């Protein structure tokens, strides 16, 4: 029954799509299903080899990234004191847009698939790390008591209780990670590989080959979704009752005083510099491309260099900020509207959860075709990238309004609108802020990728340029600056979150 219905849906979509394509024949931004099919059939060998290449890299990166996430999560559980440093460093690395680390990895690794695999790993480790830490912690105190009764320590508790208990959470993370790994591998290919779907996509876009762009976007998105579905199937088999978790960064302890926080940030900064300089020296990396902190400092002390960089950043932020705000507002807004019609919300939820997982970047070329290479196109890419995760998180948040409160309101016969305003929207705020934090790196990734692919402005282009002219000082400066912007924006969102949630909480007390 549902199968026939979804089949009918697919057929209808294809027919409508074909009809639109027939209305505008030879359009530069639209290809119908028949055009796409023709292209795929005509180039099946090429496409197949590219798909195998990209999928292979994604899978290897997926395994590495999750392995690292697993190791870090276990470390945090076994040595709780390490949590602060591990989380901060993990977040910092996560904040570096993949498109920025791509060129650097390219010069470090040279030709081959090293960068693609590393980027795939970088794209997945953070979400897995977060959900795994939540899962490893989500055990009842009775079980830790049981272990204590027998004099067993953290390691036994981890091995006997926590690991098994965290499985559902692990799979929530892994499922999101599967398409993300694909995205990472594609971005790695954008930044200078020889083979793979990313390379073909770049070529198709530069050559304005509309049919090829559409075919590649479809194939990439389908493969990424296939990964999502496969992990989902395993998840269903192993842990049928998956928990709802907001994959978001753990909120820092608020009991730290301001000086303590400053000292903490300084310590992390010092550690980063030490690791940066130390690892380059330890591996004896060529200073021609492996720039040390001192090199960057010197480079940026020339006002001309600094100006170039800041101008590019200004151009990038002019796209990123509107896109970021639009994505958040649309996601939260639609969630609220849907909440007024619960049946519609219930119907849309699964679709939204699935679309959240589509690596939007794989379809970015289509958005560029549709909205152009200017402001609208770029903002659209950023907004779409953020829209689905926000929608899903906010719907989940709205649903988590305690049922007693809903019942209480309904027993007084208040309108649905009033209920929404006074009970459900406040309950949604934590989810909204959680996605606002996670959306910061996503927005920077989207905007720089769009610039790299299409627009010809901003830091993304600066990086593409410097990577091809071997201006490694500028390349590293871009990476450092993007990372600082991401961390700064992240901290700003966290600050707003604290203030807003505090006001909301005190309202609750009154």
């Amino acid at each position, binding site marked *: 029954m549902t199968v026939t219905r979804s089949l009918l849906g697919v057929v209808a979509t294809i027919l409508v799509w074909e009809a639109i394509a027939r209305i505008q024949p030879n359009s530069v931004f639209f290809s119908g299903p028949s055009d796409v099919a023709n292209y795929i059939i005509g180039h099946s060998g090429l496409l197949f080899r590219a798909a195998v290449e990209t999928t292979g890299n994604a899978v290897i990166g997926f395994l590495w990234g999750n392995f690292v996430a697993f190791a870090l999560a276990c470390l945090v559980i076994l040595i709780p004191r390490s949590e602060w440093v591990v989380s901060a460093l993990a977040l910092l690395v996560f904040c570096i847009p993949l498109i920025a680390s791509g060129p650097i990895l390219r010069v470090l690794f040279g030709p081959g698939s090293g960068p693609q695999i590393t980027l795939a790993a970088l794209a997945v480790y953070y979400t897995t790390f977060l959900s795994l830490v939540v899962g490893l912690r989500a055990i009842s105190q009775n079980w830790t008591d049981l272990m*204590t*009764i*027998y004099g067993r320590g953290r390691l036994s508790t981890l091995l006997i209780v926590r690991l098994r208990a965290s499985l559902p959470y692990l799979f929530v993370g892994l499922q999101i990670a599967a398409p993300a790994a694909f995205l990472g591998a594609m971005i790695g290919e954008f930044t200078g590989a020889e083979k793979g779907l990313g390379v073909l996509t770049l070529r198709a876009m530069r050559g304005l080959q509309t049919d090829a762009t559409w075919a590649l976007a479809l194939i990439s998105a389908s493969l990424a979704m296939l990964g999502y579905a496969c992990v989902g199937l395993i998840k269903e088999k192993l842990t049928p009752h998956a928990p709802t978790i907001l994959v978001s960064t753990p909120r820092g302890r608020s009991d730290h005083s301001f000086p303590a926080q400053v000292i903490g940030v300084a310590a992390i900064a010092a550690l980063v510099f030490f690791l940066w300089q130390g690892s380059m020296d330890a591996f004896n990396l060529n200073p021609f491309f492996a720039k040390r902190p001192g090199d960057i400092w010197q480079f940026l002390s020339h006002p001309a260099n600094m100006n170039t960089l800041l101008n590019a950043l200004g151009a990038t932020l002019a796209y990123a900020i509107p896109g970021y705000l639009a994505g958040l507002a649309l996601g939260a807004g639609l969630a609220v509207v849907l909440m007024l019609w619960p049946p519609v919300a219930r119907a849309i939820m699964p679709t939204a959860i699935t679309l959240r997982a589509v690596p939007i970047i794989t379809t970015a070329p289509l958005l560029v075709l549709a909205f152009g290479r200017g402001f609208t196109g770029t903002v659209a890419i950023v907004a779409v990238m953020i829209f689905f995760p926000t929608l899903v998180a906010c719907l989940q948040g709205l649903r988590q309004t305690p049922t007693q409160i809903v019942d209480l309101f309904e027993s007084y016969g208040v309108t649905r609108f009033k209920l929404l305003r006074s009970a459900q929207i406040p309950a949604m705020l934590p989810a909204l802020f959680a996605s606002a934090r996670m959306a910061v790196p996503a927005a920077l990734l989207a905007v720089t990728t769009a610039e790299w692919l299409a627009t010809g402005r901003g830091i993304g282009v600066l990086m593409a340029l410097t990577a091809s002219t071997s201006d490694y000082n500028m390349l590293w400066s871009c990476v450092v600056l993007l990372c600082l912007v991401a961390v700064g924006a992240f901290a700003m969102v966290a600050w707003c979150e604290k203030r807003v949630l505090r006001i909301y909480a005190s309202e609750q007390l009154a």
Partner: protein
Amino acid sequence: MTAADISCENVRKSFDRTDAVAEFSTVFQAGRTTALVGPSGCGKSTILRMIAGLDAPDAGLIRLGPETPKQVARRGGLSMAFQDPSLLPWRTVRSNIALGAELARKPAGGVDDLIHLVGLDGFADHRPAELSGGMRQRAAIARSLISEPEFLLLDEPFGAVDAITRRRLNQDLPPLWRRRKTTTILVTHSVEEAVLLSDRVIVLSPRPARILSDIQIDIEGLRTAAETNSAKFQALKSKVLAALEEAA
């Protein structure tokens, strides 16, 4: 290993602003069973948790023989059946029970005998979700017995068990820990159960817990359910009840 006393000296414990236990001092004799009864919320579980090394007392001293609770725990010498059975949901009944021996680093012999003893025959390969609350509690009791501990702490172990089964367990289980000379502390709400199962009943005051009365149960020989009808049993039961009423 010979049986050892559990001694508590001026033990105190408070949570935030609630005093849970105040100046608790007694010796639980080696190889004997002592029941703790008292109004709910008076601090019985807190006392057991401190003896088990789960919570540290704010003041005072607890020793199991010459050792601290943590030392005994590390060598697998004690076990506890919690109010909440806290079985691992992904393990079968058999492997949940065997876990007690596994954690205490002891051979897991006799799991099937214990399963029979607690009346879970035929459920060895079921998972906790397929059992009733009482059955889960029985599995948890079996888990606490499998490691043959020197110190056994039972916190309302039969709370969710139905009346008939409870009667049977009251009769079948105590010989096990008596034979092993286990120093046992039993927290229970049932005065009858306290008198039937133990050698001594301690009645506690409402929170913070202090000892109100300390009653020796000098019934010799095998205690069967029939014993509950004897005049001596009834007299002891009334004594405990009177002390409890005084407490309330």
